[in-house]
């Protein structure tokens, strides 16, 4: 299962990262080697094995729906590059 330039371009788009054609070819050849290594997992028989998404026997944690103080709006907004009134400001979302 070799990774292609087209796939890397597509995945970069899904990941919202602009890449130059040079970067695409550089990452393609590196990822190809990494995937080749990762493919060693195919040697193992995994039928009937349950997947482990974590290591603890976790249960849902429920709590009362109480109102508690949250972060100060002005302090949080002060961290953003662009804002207007009580909102974060971004370029247009719909063409």
């Amino acid at each position, binding site marked *: 299962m070799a990774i292609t330039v087209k796939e890397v371009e597509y995945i970069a788009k899904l990941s919202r990262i602009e890449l130059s054609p040079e970067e695409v070819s550089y990452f393609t050849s590196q990822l190809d080697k990494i995937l080749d290594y990762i493919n060693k*997992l195919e040697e193992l028989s995994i039928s009937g094995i349950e997947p482990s998404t974590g290591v603890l026997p976790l249960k849902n944690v429920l709590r009362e729906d109480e109102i508690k103080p949250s972060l100060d709006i002005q302090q949080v907004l002060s961290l953003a590059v662009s804002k207007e009134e009580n909102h974060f400001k971004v370029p247009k979302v719909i063409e």
Partner: protein
Amino acid sequence: MLTLDNLRIRALLDLYQKKGITREEVIDYLFNRIDRVESQVKAFVYLNREGIRRQINENCICEDVRLKGIPVTIKDNICVKGELTTCSSKILEGFSPPYNATVVEKLKNAGAILFGKANMDEFAFGSSCETSHCGPTYNPWNLKYVPGGSSGGSAAAVAADETVAALGSDTGGSIRQPAALCGVVGLKPTYGRVSRYGLIAFASSLDQIGPITKDVSDCALILNVIAGHDERDSTSVNLAVPDYTKSLMQDIKGLKIGMPREYFLPGIDLEVKKAIGKATTLFQDLGAKVVEISLPHTEYAVAVYYIIATAEASSNLARFDGVQYGYRTKNLDNAEENNTIVQMYSRTRREGFGPEAKRRIILGTYVLSSGYYDAYYLRALKVRTLIRKDFEQAFKECDLLITPTSPTAAFKIGEKLENPLSMYLSDVYTISANLAGIPAMSLPCGLTQDGLPIGLQILAKPFDEESIFRLAYAYEQNTNWHLQKPNV
């Protein structure tokens, strides 16, 4: 004149109590030390000297005095309110969190002085501290070598006596491997032992915060403070926290120690192998029983890790989009109507992330993408089960496991940077503990002929950090590796 070299927490607490030294004197000593060596080591990304001096007076009033007046350096991916916290990445440039991580609150409440932010691989992606946007940290034992990573700044600062202790985070060895390469003690606690609230997430099912210290006692003193349940991290476990200093006793008679044969196959450096062999003989002399055991799926751990960790990272790092905090691209069209939000996201992330972060996000997105999910991600989760079961089986046969922390001592700056796979393989002995969620410590156990430190790793069952402390302390009391210091 009192010498403060190799200053430990326990000794410092004694000195404070006897009024043999003041907090100002300790801070002055450390600032002087930093002025002398930091230009070579580059362990810190931020050090707010006025802020540190202010804390000396602030923390006089706290009731809990377990770490009163003890300077602790914080890895740059752990949130400190009002202090720069950037994961050593451009994309978090200028970010000062509006809240403290739980571990930071706990340190402050115990009287600790927060002593600067330590350099790291960008977003903890690396094993050498070379992927930091702020530039590399250098190994205090030999400045041509890497300090390990990702918590390389934390380990180097402790080793170079620029601080007393530090916090790191460990996703696949990021506390233990730099601790080994810098000749200090590093502990990755059991998953769930320490709250991750305020730790900027890399891989949420693997990440744990832990101490990096000059000896085993100091490690126990820090873990006593930072461990415990936190309702803000629903994966932290509601179990009583023992007093870990009670495990600091020399008696290890009757302990059964396993040596996994898969960790001693060709590929291991001979000097490293020899150092672990000597430790084994010592444990036997002290009355422990050493047995060979098998962890049959060891050779698959790195492959499993680089699927699971990158998958989780690609999802966790989606939040860095230039909207709410951190860096946003300035390279958009001057006419606002010509720009779209997707362009802004994609260009911000292009400019804000370094090459290793991009590589991992792309790999993680790939293994989760439709068509590859079953072949990679789901398969990796199943092999993770096999690796967990290996450990469950091993701990039926013995109380603890010992292995090298890293197959080699420190490598040269630049040596593995262009070959990501060889960098990933340097984590081969540390990754399994994260996949299985078990606690593991690295402590110094030798020096190579070139004068570089070697680390011994001790692993235990989930929530049995106490046995690790017991064995590690006995080792330390019978050797003097923890007293060796670099000549920086």
